């Protein structure tokens, strides 16, 4: 399941959905707001329909390249404080090599291709990430 949402999510529920009798390995990536350089919170913005479609395309690529059994992706939007979850990706596969590779593939492609933006807000002001 792919979801872009303002709400926090339960990793436990995502992992539960990814479990299956033919999956021996489940790899999870959780991205959280880091307190770099005086950052207090982040605003996450999405081009919702385009991001959803792009994440679904990435999921399909990962499933077929790595023979994944299950893929769960949640990306949050809105205002997130330091320490809060931004994104979670759960991949299950028969063996660990595929589960690691699939999870890594999805986060790398998400960062490159999904229309999502983060604004860092802290004691030095505000700044859109990636904007030079």
């Amino acid at each position, binding site marked *: 399941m792919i979801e872009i949402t303002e709400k926090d999510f339960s990793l436990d529920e995502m992992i539960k959905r990814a479990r299956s009798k033919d999956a021996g390995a489940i790899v999870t990536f959780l991205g959280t707001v880091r307190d770099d350089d005086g950052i207090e919170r982040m605003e996450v913005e999405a081009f919702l329909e385009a991001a959803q479609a792009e994440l679904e395309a990435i999921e399909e690529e990962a499933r077929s390249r790595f023979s994944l059994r299950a893929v769960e992706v949640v990306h949050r939007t809105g205002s997130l404080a330091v320490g809060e979850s931004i994104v979670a990706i759960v991949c299950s596969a028969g063996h660990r090599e595929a589960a690691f590779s699939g999870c890594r593939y999805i986060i790398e492609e998400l960062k490159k291709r999904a229309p*999502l933006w983060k604004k860092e807000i802290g004691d030095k002001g505000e700044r859109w990430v990636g904007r030079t």
Partner: protein
Amino acid sequence: MLVKVLAFAGFREILGKERELSLNESVTVKELLAELAVATPRFKEAAFDESGALRDYVLLMINRKLIDSRQDLSRPLQEGDELAIFPPLAGG
């Protein structure tokens, strides 16, 4: 002809999230961006350099597909097209 313009992140802060524009038949992406620049000086500053060229970090999608911001600017917009303007992606 109606065209929808979406803007995100820094460009949303300048242009607003969404607007519908009524245009002449023959308008290209470049011409539409130039119109926005005339109407909104802060957009001109953010999106174009001193020589009037689109800055490297301006990304464009037409109908949710990225276009090449250097080569595809002469593409004519069609009725109902959705042009999205945004800075580099930074999810995850």
